[in-house]
């Protein structure tokens, strides 16, 4: 076993130091070391998107990132999405639009959808579907997920 390294990162706005082995993925460290279990593991090879997080603003599959690569990085997970008093509008839109069934893919979809709307506040249906194609959902058939993102974008553009 290789020696553990100290990694310093900012996670959901909080400076965080953690110890990890060089072989540990960011996903494993988030879940098993730091207890951010909102980030889910569905496949561990970058095919399902359940472990989607933002790394320096970009969305990544955290199962494909080694934790030691994150020294100095800013990381956003699902746990950082809601404020202390209110949910993020996307989270609210997912609830009101019944855009989740089992809920296991939901954190990944929300993190990815937030990145989409920041990049493109008024996406077309095709743009939403293209952007979210890296996130698999087996329960909903995607209809209500796409509609929730549309509803959130429409509400934001009214304000």
């Amino acid at each position, binding site marked *: 076993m290789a020696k553990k390294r100290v990694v310093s990162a900012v996670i959901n706005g909080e400076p965080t130091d953690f110890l990890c082995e060089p072989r540990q993925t960011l996903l494993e460290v988030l879940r098993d070391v730091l207890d951010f279990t909102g980030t889910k593991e569905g496949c561990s090879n970058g095919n399902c998107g359940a472990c989607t997080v933002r790394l320096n603003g970009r969305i990544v599959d955290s199962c494909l990132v080694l934790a030691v690569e994150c020294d100095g990085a800013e990381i956003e997970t699902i746990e950082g999405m809601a404020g202390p008093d209110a949910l993020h509008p996307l989270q609210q839109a997912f609830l009101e639009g019944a855009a989740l069934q089992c809920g296991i893919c939901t954190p990944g979809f929300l993190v990815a959808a937030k990145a989409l709307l920041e990049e493109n506040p008024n996406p077309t249906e095709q743009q939403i579907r*293209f952007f979210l194609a890296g996130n698999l959902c087996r329960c909903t058939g995607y209809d209500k997920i796409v509609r929730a993102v549309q509803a959130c974008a429409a509400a934001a553009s009214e304000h």
Partner: protein
Amino acid sequence: MATVEKQRQRKYRVLGTRPVRHDGVDKVTGRARYGADTHLPGMLYAAMLRSPHAHARIVSIDTSAAEAMPGVHAVVTREDFPDVSNRIVELGEGAVNLGHLSQNVMARNKVLYKGHAVAAVAADSIHIAREAAQRIRVEYEILPPVLDVLEAMSDDAPVLNEDVRTEEFGGGTGDRPTNVAKHFHYEKGDVEAGFARAAVIVEREFRTATVHQGYIEPHAATALWNPDGHVTIWTCTQGSFTARQQTAELLGLPVSRVRVIPTEIGGGFGGKISVYLEPVAALLAKKSGRPVKLVMDRSEVLEGTGPTPGSYIRVKMGADRDGRITAAEAYLAYEAGAFPGSPINPGCMCIFACYDVPNGRIDGYDVCVNKPRTNAYRAPGATNAAFAAETVIDEICEQLGMDPLEFRLKNAAVEGTRRIDGVTYSRIGMKETVEAILNSEHYRSELKGPNRGRGVASGFWFNVGLKSTVVATVNPDGTVSLVEGSTDIGGTRTSVAMQLAETLGIAAEDVQPLVADTDSVGYTDVTGGSRVTFSTGIAAIEAAKDIQRQMCERAALIWDCPVDQVRYEDGRVVGPDGQAFTFKELAALVPSTGEPIVGRGTSGKANQGGAFATEVVDVEVDPDTGKVQILRFTVAQDAGCAVHPSYVEGQMQGGVVQGIGWALNEEYIYDDQGRMLNNTFLDYRIPTCYDVPMIDTIIVEVPDPNHPYGVRGVGEVPIVPPPAAIANAIYRAVGVRMDRLPMSPPRVLEKILQSRAAAPAQ
């Protein structure tokens, strides 16, 4: 592309509304705890060693190198499992042979598929556990595998299980080891006479590939074994009581020694009913004296759990000039995988279940092959069968020059129709789903453009009743805490809470549902068979009635009047002389006027009347590549009474998209040695949101007389018609009849090229 919903008279205050689900905030903030999120002090991580061969005898297992590794705390193999007899037990959704189940959880003398569990290791970290598992030396004597259902049925095929004899339906057992575990046979009327009367007869053969439920959450179990012999298990299961029973039986413990705490469950679709990990984690915990967590990775899920069977189906159907079915015959052979138990019987019972067939014969065979032991997948057995029957019907309609929906309307099963397997229907909504599609904007619209086609198909699924328990406590603030045993996969906390709220005349938000563990709530069967909203709903209604009764008694006490002068009405307790309490007013008085008010409800007598769906799809086929694009899809389904319409639509849309994946992409691809070649989500390709359009829904409501509010289960039937509907659409688009699933680009292209080669040169 708006979602259409049938307007109906609003009979109810709560049912038919769309409250935000009670567990929603936990699930959008990442706080909900799923199977792999369990973490206990001192917990070890475990990994499995699995067979690299599809069929082999285990000569020896040497675990010494693994046990010698620093950080390894326990290793288990077949030596650690008690020998359980070949006892058959009822596990909620079908009977299971315990000996086979135990051999599936940990291989004994033979491995029967690649991915069959052979050993497990618990260590300080998952990395050490995986490394140690690789150091276990297993000596195999490799045997020839049999992978095809028809080959497995032949007399000279390698036999998987020496203890399997063919059980004939209605009695009789074969006298030699075989792969054919069961033969079902159903007959009605005079089949030969029926075919003799037919003006048109179509007979075709079909093949479908093995497919997986594809839930995004891999199986996970964490176990703690106390020195007093009490075992606690945290697991993402569709049924905590069946997980308890299976675990106890396989470990030789009384059920009272095993407590199962269900975590949230990240999808199941039937695949999280059998145990795989729970007994293994428990034995590792016993050996190590520490809590142990065991989680599958994706390839273990695909190779080591139960997919749904590949199949061979032959269908023959005849109809007269007027388009009435005169006779139908089917032969179905389903791959059970390593051990008997494919959903062949439901396949047989579903294949012609949408129609009034006067003369029919169905033969079905349950056949072992060297693939994972199959398991339930959303309307298990029905989708394979519908692909065959509904495609043959389309061809009959073409020959008769008849609209395929008019044909279905003419032959639709109705109340009183007797199925070939003997069951007579109560009030059902098959006809209404056909009418809904016939009258839909989608079906009436014109589809233009080259290589485009429209197809329709119908489907049936039984839905089950089974047993549930609900306990509900009245709180002084006028709310009710509801405790249930049904694990919640798709929003049933809310659909059950809404039925309790409706019965009490309070708001859905004033009910707080909680899914409890096996020591905290009464027996409850699995979340499966589209049963929870129906059956746990009935238990909730009973609990609400129990509360009504106690509230009336309490009010009588307060008013000092006979209880028969008090009645519960519209969320109020009404007494003599115009006296009345709202639910909230009386709830506030409960603590100061007597004992707590706790309602109790159970269910188990009622059985469901069955669910039907009819679907229409428009496709465009690329004639150069064979790729099929879904342009538009509409599903009409009988929900009986849509308790929460959004979640009913969600089941319809989710089922349809799984059906699209089954139709177009999904299959286990094997080499000739039985090694799965596509054991990742990259290569076992389920639909992404870029592959599908919005799925339009039409909720039809023909109340089920077996439920107080007319509820029918909605979870399963929408997956049944898509492969057939899409096959029929492909035919309309490019003129080729598909007879194999999936209808992936190479298969469609092959058919197109064959039809071009066969066409006369111009």
